[in-house]
């Protein structure tokens, strides 16, 4: 959670710049429907306002998977 709070949370709590809000399942389901690799590619390479790695310089792929799952509410 510490990594998430220092990175993803910057935008995904408030929905800054159109970021899907953590816990808003409707917003996340639309993204998840595009597939896992699509989401991970966007995180690693950046997408729209989100920079590559989403401001988490220490995160590896496994961390990003967990963070997406947490925000989408599917790993509870």
């Amino acid at each position, binding site marked *: 959670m510490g990594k998430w709070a220092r990175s993803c949370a910057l935008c995904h709590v408030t929905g800054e710049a159109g970021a899907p809000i953590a816990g808003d399942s409707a917003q996340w*389901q639309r993204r998840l429907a595009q597939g896992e690799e699509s989401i991970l590619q966007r995180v690693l*390479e950046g997408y*729209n306002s989100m920079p590559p*790695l989403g401001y988490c*310089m220490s995160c590896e792929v*496994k961390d990003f998977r967990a963070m997406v*799952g947490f925000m*989408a509410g*599917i*790993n509870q």
Partner: protein
Amino acid sequence: MKDLTRRSFLASSLRAALFGAYAVNSSAQARSTPWSNWSGGQTCRPAGRYDIASEDQLIELLNSTSGPIRPIGSGHSFSPLIPTDGHLVIIDQLSGILDYDSSTLQATIGAGSRLGDLGVALDDIGQGMLNLPDIDRQTLAGATATGTHGTGITLQSLAGNITSLRLVTPEGEIRDIDASDGDLFDAVRVNVGALGVVTQIRLQNREAYKLKKREWTAPTEDILTDFDELAASHRHFEIFPLVYSDYSMVLSIDESDQPIGQTIIPAEEVTLADLRPLGVDATPLERLTMNNALAANAETSEVVDLSHKLLSNIRNNRFNEMEYSIPAEGSAECVREILKTIYDQAIDVAFPLEYRYVSPEDPWLSMAYGDEPHATISIHRTAREDYRPYFDIIEPIFWKYGGRPHWGKIHSLGHRELSQLYPRFRDFMEIRQSLDPNGRMLNEHLKNLFDA
């Protein structure tokens, strides 16, 4: 039996898809995850990343590893300060206000703190930073190490407001450095990440305050003619000269005790949004005509808010940037030459320039080092576009005016040119050599900068 609805089936499938590969491939992927900066223009595949939580962990890392080490903030530098096949040291966890003094209005802050997080935290203790740069996602360590600055002829860069800092040297020694250390203090405040890893910084702040920002458009030539007077009469004053236009967006910011609020739509957003659709098909003259019409009709906006909310922003459109400082006197001519070059060569760019003054200051590698005010001029390219052709044409214009490059932004200079531009550059190189005799803090870019 539990009902399996279409929705729950979909959710289960997505869960399986998302986490299915994790258990099998996590270790291999962990080693291969690439790093990239904010714009995506710089990438690398480091041997390791270390997310340190304490100075002890940092020292242990330095003592237990060999090879290059690069400290990383939020990755907002456009220049290749970070790329390495060695180790990245992430300082995000070294954050927050560690200590403060309400009488001197100073605060000691974890160097990994993001500027955007500090505004509220400092406001809670009655303090506000004297100035801020444009982007608020940067870390304090990264912003100061690169000489990042805001706007204001009386206001120094973030590094200029450092009263002391703690450096962990490449050899694992903790050094607390302040003005009593003389040359070392002037070298380390803007250090380009070449002297070690800064873990905490004490800043001179002021009492928390509100500002009033005003944005409007005006003929560029009128503003350039009166720029010195305008810069002197506002706490912050800058312009964004529009390309293919006779107009600039103008921004002034001054202290205010008015209620927080905004009056109308910011002119900057209206103008930028309207300029982009002009695209590549329009001729320079067509662009000029249309842009002038748009700019002439842009509205003025005024907003009052807490200082940290007005001085620094989240940038939603990623870009690459080149910025040089030149002596303020005569700098308007450099702006004119860049605008004319873009028009004459029909360079396809919609981003405005940015032109502002900064105060002289003491850190040796500051863009504004010395006794005279400097102007800084920036050019931008969207992250999707290749910035090199545009920047390659404009950069020699900066050189004509004696320009010093921003360390975190794109430039092509090496130690030979830099030592002519920064009077204490060779002294900095000597201190760097003494603190890092084995060159652990150097990547290829820094070797070129510091002749190492």
